[in-house]
């Protein structure tokens, strides 16, 4: 499995256009969040978030539904405006990131049903779509997620996992420096989830972007992330470094111990039947 994955990466490298930057942790952008608040009417969803994510780190954000973790992601993506506070990508405050530097993968694939698989990946290139070599970049990225031979299919004939891989290729094709995931594997079956987790880890290590993943699956967070952040009542309630060596074995004792720790914390303050 590992050998296969490595070989596939090698192939991709060979096809990368010369203009593309070499993959290294320096590809990532730091994320800085200062005093971020968001209210919808009288309801305060985020009550002041302060967070620094170093470049290239993989951060998982967990919390119960309605805790504000998805709202935080939407603010970072510019899909909602914060009530107060600020955030920036990069090291200097106020620095404006290139609009292709930050990409997102949603829980739903959100592919254009009227565009072929390859054209859907090309959406991720934005205006670069018209440049020579754009198609080769899209093809190389599609190869990276193992779907090159499905490039001329309509999205409707693909399985859920394959659609999510196309969505991943679309997010990756512009070589983003920050990649946000909003429960990207939430709708997949258990086996597809595991292989997608491996794929995500591989491309993250390969390309060196900063990854922010919102998930409700604590085991997934512990398996993938360098650092797990728990949000409760709109505040950061736990900030835990995961120092386990990679690749981590899903279901190993270390992973299970950390998972138990976080879950205990999650349920510490909850009354019985709160989340039912």
């Amino acid at each position, binding site marked *: 499995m590992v050998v296969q994955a490595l070989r596939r990466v090698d192939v991709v490298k060979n096809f990368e256009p010369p203009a593309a930057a070499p993959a290294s942790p320096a590809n990532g952008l730091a994320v800085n969040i200062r005093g971020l608040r968001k209210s919808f009417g009288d309801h305060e969803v985020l009550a002041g978030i302060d967070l620094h994510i170093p470049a290239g780190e993989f951060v998982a954000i967990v919390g119960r539904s309605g805790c504000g973790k998805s709202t935080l992601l939407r603010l970072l993506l*510019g899909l909602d405006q914060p009530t107060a506070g600020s955030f920036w990508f990069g090291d200097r405050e106020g620095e404006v990131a290139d*609009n292709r530097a930050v990409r*997102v993968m949603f829980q739903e694939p959100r592919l254009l*049903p*009227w565009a072929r698989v390859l054209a859907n990946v090309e*959406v991720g290139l934005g*205006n670069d779509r018209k440049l020579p070599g754009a198609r080769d970049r899209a093809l190389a990225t599609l190869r990276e997620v193992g779907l090159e031979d499905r490039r001329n299919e309509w999205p*409707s004939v693909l399985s859920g996992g394959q659609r999510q891989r196309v969505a991943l290729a679309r997010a990756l094709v512009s070589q983003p420096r920050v990649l946000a995931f909003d429960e990207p594997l939430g709708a997949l079956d258990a086996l597809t989830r595991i292989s997608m987790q491996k794929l995500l880890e591989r491309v993250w290590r390969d390309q060196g972007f900063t990854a922010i993943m919102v998930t409700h699956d604590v085991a997934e967070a512990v398996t993938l992330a360098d650092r797990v952040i728990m949000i409760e009542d709109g505040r950061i309630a736990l900030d835990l470094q995961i120092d386990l060596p990679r690749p981590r074995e899903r279901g190993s004792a270390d992973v299970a111990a950390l998972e138990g720790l976080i879950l205990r914390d999650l349920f510490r303050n909850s009354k019985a039947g709160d989340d039912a």
Partner: protein
Amino acid sequence: MSAAVASGGSSRGLQTLTQWALPIGLILVWQAMSMAGLIPSRVLPAPTDVVAAGWKLLKSGELMRNIWVSFWRAIVGFAIGGSIGFGLGLANGLSDRSERILDSTLQMVRNIPHLALIPLVILWFGIDEEAKLFLVALGVFFPIYINTQHGVRTVDAQLVEMGQTYGMSRSALFWQVILPGALPSIFVGLRYALGIMWLTLIVAETISASSGIGYMAMQAREFLLVDVVVLSILIYALLGKLADSVARLLERFCLSWHPAFQKR
């Protein structure tokens, strides 16, 4: 292998045959009953008589002239009403302000049956071409308008959001997300509009015209030429079927991504 292909081909041929079995059977029964004298020719002439009448009119050139006139009215009226409906549907689908200003007025007008305007239209335009074009345009306007607006309004908001996070410009968003997303609904409007187009034209031509298929039918009624009346009705049916087939073909071509139009 080849046997399987051959049997597949012949079963498809059989399917086409079944499709046509009923109409052909009905015509044969009709012919037989006419020949047996069960249907008086003053009520319904035999199919052979209708064909003969058609042949006579074709030779005199009258048939083609009238078909052409009706066809032209249908196309021009459709183009005028359809493009206005499409344009306003897009505008009111995309812009809240435009919808606030226009939509309630248009919905009010929509509730008037457009054929109720015939007396007024005759007063305005007489029985000239404008009258027919106006009625056809008005008739096709609403289904196209409503379905275009509905299509644009109901484009998957998640896809629009995706387009925005990927930095699509407004025009890219329109061409790549909104218009293709609205297309299935627009086609529903198109096919409705084609039906209304022929309906309007038939009524308009039978009431106020000096040429066209409807006029040909009304003239024939005056002279008790039942075969020509039946012929006119059949031509309308054929033209309607033709328009619908073209729309379906276009739909199949434009919506080939849609699971409903993919080969199983």
